């Protein structure tokens, strides 16, 4: 294989890894504050992508510059999913707090299906794949045999930026400190005067906004979205969070990029077809989980949030 093609694969892997990481971080945040798995997370990502597309359709007549348009639809998706995440937490997750965690998993699994079906049935021609507008500059930098596309570079940088911003928020703000305290000891956190319900809602809002961001990124990257896109992304994000140790943000990011790397290796190294890349990646994840059942970064030594 020539260097150019290899670089192409690496770039693709980095983009996928970024999206997976953003999804995995959400799983980790939710598990941090409430010890639950919210399985509708991937479908929230999908709804976020459709919210962005709907905003685009609504604004199409406004003659906005592509940048402004992109910011507008991204803001629409992020805000809408932030609110949806809070609503889901309030309506389906918090009330089940005293029930076994399995019930939350089940109810959010069903909720995800409901979201998927709702988009399929009620979004205009929702059953068909939808073209997603290419709003980022199409320029590319020629690097010998490899073209570095500006849109990819921008998306990757934006992903990094959002994760750094999340870390800064968690480490250096009062609310971030409250989220970390709740993740460690809910009861004691409440006796510090922390409004537990509010912290949970905000955390679910943030995680869901990140999913919306990943959904828009996905649309921009493939120039297409569909109602089923959240299913695989949800499962991959969940696996990434688990492989990373379900509890540390760094673990989730590590897991996200690891999964993308495995897919890329699968695509490059499995001889006949790249169709086997997911089988390969999930196979390795299963193997890792058998060898290290608690994930790569143990919760005991890492910070949970």
């Amino acid at each position: 294989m020539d260097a150019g093609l290899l670089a192409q694969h690496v770039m693709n892997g980095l983009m996928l890894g970024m999206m997976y990481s953003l999804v995995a971080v959400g799983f980790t945040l939710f598990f941090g504050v409430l010890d639950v798995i919210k399985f509708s997370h991937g479908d929230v990502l999908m709804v976020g992508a459709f919210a962005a597309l709907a905003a685009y359709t609504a604004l199409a007549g406004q003659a906005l510059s592509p940048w402004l348009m992109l910011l507008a639809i991204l803001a629409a998706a992020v805000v809408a999913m932030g609110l949806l995440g809070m609503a889901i937490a309030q309506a389906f997750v918090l009330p089940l707090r005293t029930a076994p965690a399995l019930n939350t998993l089940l109810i959010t699994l069903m909720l995800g299906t409901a979201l998927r079906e709702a988009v399929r049935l009620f979004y205009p021609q929702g059953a068909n794949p939808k073209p997603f507008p290419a709003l980022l500059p199409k320029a590319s930098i020629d690097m010998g045999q490899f073209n570095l596309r500006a849109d990819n570079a921008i998306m990757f940088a934006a992903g990094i930026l959002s994760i750094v911003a999340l870390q800064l928020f968690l480490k250096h703000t009062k609310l971030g400190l409250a989220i970390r305290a709740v993740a460690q000891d809910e009861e004691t956190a409440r006796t510090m005067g922390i409004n537990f319900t509010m912290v949970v809602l905000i955390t679910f809002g943030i995680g869901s906004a990140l999913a919306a961001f990943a959904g828009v990124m996905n649309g921009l990257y493939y120039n297409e979205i569909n109602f089923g896109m959240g299913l695989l992304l949800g499962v991959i994000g969940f696996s990434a969070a688990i492989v990373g140790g379900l509890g540390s943000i760094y673990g989730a990011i590590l897991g996200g990029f690891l999964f993308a790397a495995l897919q890329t290796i699968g695509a490059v190294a499995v001889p006949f077809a790249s169709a086997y890349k997911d089988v390969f990646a999930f196979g390795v994840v299963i193997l890792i989980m058998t060898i290290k059942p608690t994930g790569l970064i143990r919760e005991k030594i890492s910070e949970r949030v």
Partner: protein
Amino acid sequence: MSAKLEITGVYTAYDKADVLEDVSLVAEPGRITCLLGSNGSGKTTLIRSILGLTRPRAGSIVFDGKDITRLRTHKIVKAGIACIPEGRKVFPKLTVEENLRLGAYAEASASVIRTRLESTFEQFPRLGERRQQIAGTMSGGEQAMVSIGRGLMRAPKLLLIDEPSLGLSPRFVTENFGIIRDINARGITVFLVEQNVRQTLAVAHYGYVLSKGRVVAQGPTAELAARDEVREAYFG
């Protein structure tokens, strides 16, 4: 600064059986009121009831003239109550400073928080030296300091203290009682749960004895020391 706590006819249960039965007591403003009782008599449960962590099934809890019985925990804390909980409960993965800052979470002003932080470091120089240390890696005695400092960061009107000297060396225990006296000297009402009968009765003004979830004796600590119920609660 300080305020009165009035507990009237409180019943609290975890599942079905009542752990507290018809408990009534008062913590007078500016005083140290202690609660004695053997293991499992319901002392921690009473503190949990005051904080709204385990809600009373019946009865009322009034603090500073306000009924807090049904308030959510963070609202109860906002009313001016802080707690140094049983088992210290420091946030093990946060730094000493972050733990202390959480103590003042209900305080809005950043400069007030900074001032309190500095005075906490003055009172506990050891914490000042180790402000960036992860609390879970500190020794038991140091964690007790973090827990006490964190409770004081709230600058509460009422401080609930649940067995602060459990697991500490005798020297630390004596130091702890000195600290409690200091806290009270600042005008903070103290409600103290302790197993260390002699030292507790020496520091407190008024005391109650809990046995199997009921108040079986009460009185000024000077008198209480001689009562049979106190002996029974601990040695009977």
